[in-house]
């Protein structure tokens, strides 16, 4: 019997060292916040922290100003106090990724993978408000079916942003 061969860790792996690309407070009256000219990152992380909204609205995420039906997502929230499923949202052939349930008291965190490739991009994230209450906090999974690398990340609100909160974009260098 020959000697066993123990698989060795890949030496090609690189760490995910997220660096801040840009961080802004939305301008009052803005209907979109877009990060443009993104280049040189294989992963992105988007944080939307307590976004001020003129009135309650829904924020939708799109890439490369693409509003075609090239997105799919699913998010399910669980009520912490009971464990019961709540706040379910899902859509195939969507025109964007809805950050469903996000209010001006909460934060949405998302990691977007393979942003510099020509294949499908996947994303995952969660919604959180710092309080373990009876609210449901959806865990979000999504896909973006487009071949171009991501160069623009846009948040569109159905109402208007107020001048508060933070939208921050981080990246892992290619």
């Amino acid at each position, binding site marked *: 019997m020959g000697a066993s061969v123990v698989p060795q860790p890949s030496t090609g792996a690189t760490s995910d060292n997220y660096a801040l*690309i*840009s961080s*802004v407070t*939305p*301008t009052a009256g803005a209907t979109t916040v*877009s990060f443009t*000219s993104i280049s040189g990152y294989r992963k992105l992380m988007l944080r939307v922290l307590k976004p001020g909204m003129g009135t309650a*609205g829904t924020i939708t995420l799109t890439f490369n100003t693409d509003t075609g039906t090239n997105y799919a997502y699913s998010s399910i929230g669980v009520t912490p106090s009971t464990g019961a499923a709540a706040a379910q949202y899902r859509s195939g052939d969507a025109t964007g990724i809805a950050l469903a349930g996000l209010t001006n008291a909460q934060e949405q965190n998302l990691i977007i993978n393979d942003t510099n490739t020509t294949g499908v991009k996947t994303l995952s994230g969660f919604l959180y408000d710092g309080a373990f209450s009876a609210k449901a906090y959806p865990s979000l999974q999504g896909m973006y079916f487009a071949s171009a690398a991501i160069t623009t990340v846009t948040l569109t609100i*159905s109402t*208007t942003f107020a001048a508060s909160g933070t939208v921050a974009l981080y990246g892992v260098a290619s």
Partner: protein
Amino acid sequence: MILTKMIINTQTGEIENIPLTEEEIAIHESQQVTDEAAAE
């Protein structure tokens, strides 16, 4: 209130607030109506 698009150029750090065109305002307002109908 003037409705705008906020654009952050990640290469230069430049931030622009561009007023919406009339067409963009119409699209935005129609989206609001859609949201309100969905909420009812």
